[in-house]
């Protein structure tokens, strides 16, 4: 079942210039993308820095303002972007976010109790005792001791902080969690811990994830379906298998060829392959992008797989 549907989302930032600071141009951070997230699945949004993946995530929960487009929930009956602030809040609690940097996303002056209770205080009326109990259960669920409610963020390691961030996101039993590069600031072994944990709670709470990352190894490990973004548009979308086993768009191929192979015996072969793909990328650029260098619209090539081709 579809949980959330994004239709032709556009986010433009105005570029001002001239004497009166008039709008002279737009930066098209997100330029017309559409995708669906089903219940219980992990949808991966991949791309290089500056491709608009983070902007997309932030727009879905209202941290950025969309220029146009729709974000549909409740079987397509409600468009989040057209709601007034008050009405939006009703749905806002179903979507939570895990941020990239666990060092800057937790308020250093607040205790863990206040950090995790903040969303609860916004949406539910609980007595202080109930609230504390709820926070303690959440802490236990993310593998931190219930006594840590009176500690401050600096007393925790990076992985533990990220789990506090996850506990905060879980506080209101959301349906969808937007995870924006949740592990890129962490060491490999801590990364593994957070990723395992995210998979566990997904099963437990029947969560859906929008998983934003530039690390293709992690995306492959975590995601059911993947959308590849480039210059604010989707160039390819499909199941993990479609994308990794049968990439069609030249940009996807280029991205995949750039992943370092874990086998040292393949290194010459990989370098050769990368050279080929890069040549193909520059030679056939015209076949994959229109006259203005814009990515074409997605076209389905199988039931699950769509590619941006003319």
């Amino acid at each position: 079942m579809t949980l959330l549907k994004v239709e032709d989302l556009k986010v433009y930032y105005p570029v001002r210039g001239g004497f009166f600071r008039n709008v002279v141009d737009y930066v098209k951070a997100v330029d017309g993308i559409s995708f669906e997230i089903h219940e219980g699945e992990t949808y991966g949004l991949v791309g290089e820095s500056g491709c608009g993946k983070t902007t997309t995530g932030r727009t879905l929960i209202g941290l950025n303002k969309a220029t146009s487009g729709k974000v549909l929930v409740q079987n397509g009956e409600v468009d989040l972007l057209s709601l007034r602030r008050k009405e939006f809040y009703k749905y806002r609690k179903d979507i939570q976010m895990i941020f990239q940097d666990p060092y800057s996303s937790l308020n250093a002056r607040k205790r863990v109790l206040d950090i995790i209770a903040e969303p609860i205080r916004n949406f539910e009326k609980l007595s202080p005792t109930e609230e504390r109990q709820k926070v303690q259960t959440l802490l236990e669920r993310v593998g931190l001791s219930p006594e840590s409610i009176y500690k401050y963020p600096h007393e925790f390691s990076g992985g533990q902080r990220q789990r506090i961030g996850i506990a905060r996101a879980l506080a209101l039993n959301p349906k969808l969690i937007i995870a924006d590069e949740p592990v890129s600031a962490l060491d490999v072994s801590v990364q593994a811990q957070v990723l395992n944990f995210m998979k566990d709670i997904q099963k437990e709470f029947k969560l859906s994830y929008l998983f934003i990352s530039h690390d293709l190894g992690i995306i492959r490990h975590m995601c059911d379906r993947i959308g590849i973004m480039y210059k604010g548009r989707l160039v390819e979308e499909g199941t993990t298998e479609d994308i990794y086993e049968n990439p069609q768009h030249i940009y996807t191929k280029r991205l995949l060829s750039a992943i370092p192979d874990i086998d040292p015996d393949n290194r010459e072969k990989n370098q050769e392959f990368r050279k080929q793909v890069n040549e193909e990328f520059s030679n056939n650029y015209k076949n994959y992008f229109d006259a203005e260098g814009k990515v074409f619209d997605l076209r389905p090539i199988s039931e699950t797989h769509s590619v941006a081709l003319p």
Partner: protein
Amino acid sequence: MPGKALLQINNLTTSFRIGDEYYPAVDNVSLTVNENEVLAIVGESGCGKSALALSIMQLHNMERTKMEGEILFGGQNLLSLSLKDLNKIRGKEMGMIFQDPLTALNPLMRVGQQIEEAMKNHLNLTDAEMKKRALELLDKVGIPNPERTYMQYPHELSGGMRQRIVIAIAIACEPKFLIADEPTTALDVTIQAQILDLMRDLQKQMKTGIIMITHDLGVVAEMADKVAVMYAGEIVEYTDVRTLFKNPLHPYTRSLFNSIPSAAKGQEKLHVIQGIVPSLKNLPRTGCRFSSRIPWVDASAHEAHPELREVEKGHYVRCTCYQHFEFPEDAEDLKYDIT
């Protein structure tokens, strides 16, 4: 093929002062880098790999750092050189590529000037010769329009371009030896691939010896000839790259491999190393330093004074615990560290 020894580190211990006491961040490390060879040093943050790199360049704050042992380079012990003699070697014979290209470059200087700065100090060239060389270097590191970039400031360039400039500066005086401290960590995958390819091409051309510091095993597989795995200031495993990837022995190396998604293909659960890297102050000074993170391995498996021992030809492993190490079947109990 690797030639003769270029840099030899013997029993290097680098200690930092915290309060009134010195704590070793690099503990009794011995390594050799040959000509035309890439040695990768792998480990998590806090394991001492960057401290080791900075020790070789002696970029630590000397008031708070104590260094013992030997770093032999070109027949001289770098640790006993005066600052003046050291500066003749640093930047000329040895270059360094830093992690973050934005902070490594001076924002107020044009790119061209920054490249010439190293030449000004070390080579006896006229201005015109230096400019010519700087342009050649920019071309060599794959900058599409050297003339234009020469006059630009760092903020006008993208991350990948900046890292190319940092590399151009490092190789400006054709050093025999380079230290690259996480050269691609701040970059996107496609750019990372380009920079790695570039570094390897340059290394082959110039027959440089490179120490490459990284936490990414994929980068190691793409670049290295030899690998040293560091944990808590010590080298725990040291061998050539193919042996390490085919037959990793030390529990720490094996745990690292099992915790990265690209190596653990199809595996539902990634391995989590229990606990955290002990901080400098709380490092256990006796016994196997990794023992606290594999508590299910029996204490008798560890040595009292673990040493780096050659277990097969050219394959060095510390402590005997690797012989008894296996991943626990029941991973559920070991999932998270409860604090």
